[in-house]
């Protein structure tokens, strides 16, 4: 090994809420030799630009802003003496856990880790990925970029705004831009339902009389230098624009909130296999990827709606990494988890179930493929129905959960678990 290589037990990539929670949990579980690498100059990740409140209701039972939520973990990590190296970008990760990073302070660094937790978060889908026709002027921003400009840099990206997509950041920015004196003309959503949280639709659009145009999309963009107008049209059931339904909005700004994509370029370098549905790594119930000792959590694993669940999941991943480092893995039998009818992207994708002493259950997280009312979430193996639980509302905008108890896990061992959304209760 080169003398320039530093050995370390656990390396965590990303000091957002996922990376911090994972680091805190691993340290509490006794991992002493660890570090967190963060490319930005500050810890806290995307929470730093989310200055609105509503964070922490589940985890802390109080309503915090993004920076307040982040600060709790930042403080705890500091109290636990966890080294967090900011301004440090990871350039590559190999399958044998060699991590190369670069920073202005220390230059190129190479780490040989025993375990890695991937917590790189996600990125926004850009305009280009949607192939929206029209010109390419300035004034088209992803909602998160606009949020950074307004909340971090203190600049307005524009004054007359149309928002495409009804993801949560887009909804939040509709309100934020309005409060800052901009006119938000409409929020345009391709699907017949919003992909954002219901509370955001009420508090960010309805409270400000901003129309939400469902089953609509942007079909043309005008403006040579700066955006001058967009044309919006209704779409049919196949999401194709319906001629004759066009409305033109004169505006200087188009914000895009059209989906988040887990950032997994590093994971792929390390040989981590991704799920085509979540676009994050396929993991087991310990958040371990197909590469032994490489774990994943947070929005890098699958895009969450609430940071509270990111923290919960990442705590589990941190503990799992600690257990791995301590060599504590009882013999197990692997089971596959399958998306059944109405279900997309269940995490974890597989269950490693020990033969005895199952002490903890497993939360399955997934998204419905459309809106369902008064339907049942059903968990079954080839042989039996384990659970069939009524839900008043299931919508793609809100991640759904189903909990496997230790008793159920005992019955799944070695079998295939299918998650279904069914109209009737299954027995």
């Amino acid at each position, binding site marked *: 090994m080169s003398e320039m290589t530093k050995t370390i037990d656990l390396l965590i990539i990303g000091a957002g809420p996922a990376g911090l929670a994972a680091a805190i949990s691993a340290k509490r579980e006794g991992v002493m030799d660890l570090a967190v690498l963060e490319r930005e100059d500050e810890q806290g990740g995307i929470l730093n630009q989310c200055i609105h409140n509503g964070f922490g209701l589940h985890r802390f039972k109080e309503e915090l802003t993004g920076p307040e939520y982040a600060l709790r973990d930042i403080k705890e990590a500091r109290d636990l003496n966890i080294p967090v190296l900011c301004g440090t*970008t990871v*350039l590559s990760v190999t399958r044998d856990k060699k991590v190369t990073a670069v920073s202005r302070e220390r230059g190129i660094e190479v780490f040989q880790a025993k375990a890695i937790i991937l917590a790189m978060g996600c990125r926004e889908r*850009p305009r280009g990925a949607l192939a929206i026709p029209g010109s390419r002027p300035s004034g088209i921003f992803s909602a998160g*970029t606009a949020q950074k400009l307004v909340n971090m840099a203190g600049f307005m990206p524009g004054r007359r705004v149309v928002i495409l997509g009804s993801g949560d950041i887009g909804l939040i920015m509709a309100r934020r831009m309005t409060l800052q004196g901009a006119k938000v003309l409409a929020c345009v959503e391709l699907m017949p339902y919003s992909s954002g949280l219901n509370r955001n639709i009420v508090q960010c659009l309805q409270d400000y009389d901003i129309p939400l145009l469902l089953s609509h999309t942007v079909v043309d963009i005008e403006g040579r230098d700066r955006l001058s107008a967009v044309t919006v049209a209704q779409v049919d059931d196949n999401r194709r624009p319906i001629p004759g339904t066009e409305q033109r909005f004169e505006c200087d700004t188009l914000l895009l909130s059209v989906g988040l994509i887990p950032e997994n370029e590093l994971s792929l370098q390390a040989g981590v296999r991704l799920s085509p549905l979540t676009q994050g790594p396929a993991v087991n119930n310990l958040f371990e990827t197909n590469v032994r000792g490489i774990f994943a959590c947070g929005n890098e694993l699958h895009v969450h709606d609430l940071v509270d669940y990111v923290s919960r999941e990442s705590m589990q991943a941190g503990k799992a990494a600690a257990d791995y480092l301590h060599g504590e893995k009882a013999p197990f039998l692997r089971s596959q988890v399958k998306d059944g009818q109405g279900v997309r992207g269940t995490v974890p994708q597989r269950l490693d179930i020990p033969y005895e002493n199952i002490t903890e259950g497993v939360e399955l997280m997934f998204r419905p493929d459309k809106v369902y009312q008064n339907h049942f979430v059903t968990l079954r193996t080839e042989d039996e129905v384990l659970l069939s639980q009524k839900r008043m509302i299931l919508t793609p905008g809100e991640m759904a959960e189903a909990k496997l108890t230790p008793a159920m896990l005992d019955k799944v061992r070695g079998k295939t678990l299918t998650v279904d959304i069914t109209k009737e209760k299954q027995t």
Partner: protein
Amino acid sequence: MYDVVVIGAGVIGCAIAHRLAQYQGSVAVVDRANDVSEGASKANSGIVHAGYDAKAGTEKARLNVKGARMMRALCDSLGVPYGQPGALVLGFHEEDRATLEALYQNALVNGVTGCRIIERDEILKMEPNVNPEVLLALDVPASGLVSPYELTHALADSAAENGVDFKLGTTVTALSHNGDHWQLMTDKGILKARAVINCAGAFADVLHNQISTRKVRIIARRGQYYLLDHTVPLLFQRTIFQVPTKMGKGVLVSPTTHGNLLLGPTAEDITDGLDTATTALGLHDVLDKAKLTYPGVNLRQVITTFSGIRAHEQDGDFLIGAVEGAPEGAFEAIGIESPGLSAAPAIGEELGDWVAYSLKMPRNTNYIAPTPLAKPFSGMNETERRLAYENDPDYGRIVCRCEQVTEAEVRRAIRNPVGATSLDGVKRRTRAGMGRCQGGFCSTRVMEILAEELGQPMQHITKQGGKSWLLDGGIAEGADHE
């Protein structure tokens, strides 16, 4: 008074300026845009055509083959990435055999070596992602790749380093000769020159017709493209064409020098030479035709769509040399559509020498040979990276995570002789913002660096010059731009 004013800072204008810099004399390049490479040279296929296609006996064919042969050495001297992966021209029907045979013969006449006709099995062995319904293909091993804007920027920097003036954001509206010298009316005043060279791309006919007895018409021909994320391994090693049509070489599927995959272009004749919009119809058309070559195209990999303008002269050949029927000292390189990029090194050298000769410009004994561009951080190995960091700690800060562009590279792009002054200018010089997130993360930081380097407030930073403002004042202020 200048010895020479070149109108148009595209790849042709910059190649000529690069050549003229090797002579003693005062040279200026003017362009209406705020940066070089803002017209056809910023958005085309980036193919260095071997020259099998251009009709034998035309200027197009001669300069294409000559330029393509010069390209590697030129790129090496400038430090611009050049690749020569070869190309295939696919035929799907038995009747395409005659067309491909004719192309093969044309290639022989044009002096393009190494071509051969190959059949399905061999094609699929060479390019497993090609549609298995392919029947035969013309294999063109001499076909190459270059980024058109990287080449243009490097040519411009080298010219500027040798004293060529770049007057950007300057629109030439009229050309006249007063019996002694040329006068160029611009929106920024009058320029005087002993010689002018019209390389105004899609707008070249207006100036040409002001001074020539032979009227021409340039048709702006728009081409729309899809750009896909880079993949390892590459989906295609070579540029894949289909049997050409009257409107051009058709839709190609090609890797770029940076490992992205490019699909396109369309060929639409439009009236406004600045209208680089994409259309639903055009993009659909590209996809439809690209699927014939590559049925497995995955739209999830699309990172952007764009369109570019080619300057098509109605008679179809390049017009290069002295302007017919004009007073002495008027030169032009117009109607430079595909394979204009491939021909650019040859056009630059020939026309540059010609103009210098006619003005009796002596050799520039103080000529500074181009400094090859530094290797991008993303392409360095670990040792090179350590060394780069030791020399400049700004190499330690990644600005663009998708393309791994460092702050050192962004700052240098702004400090270059013809430096970036806008977000797009930085993007084309460094690739910051060109990756899969399309600047979502890095654009704020790049704006900050631009503001710092240019000594301007953040609000004055634009996407591409002109009125392409990005910020409308601070959050506590009123609107800046109403």
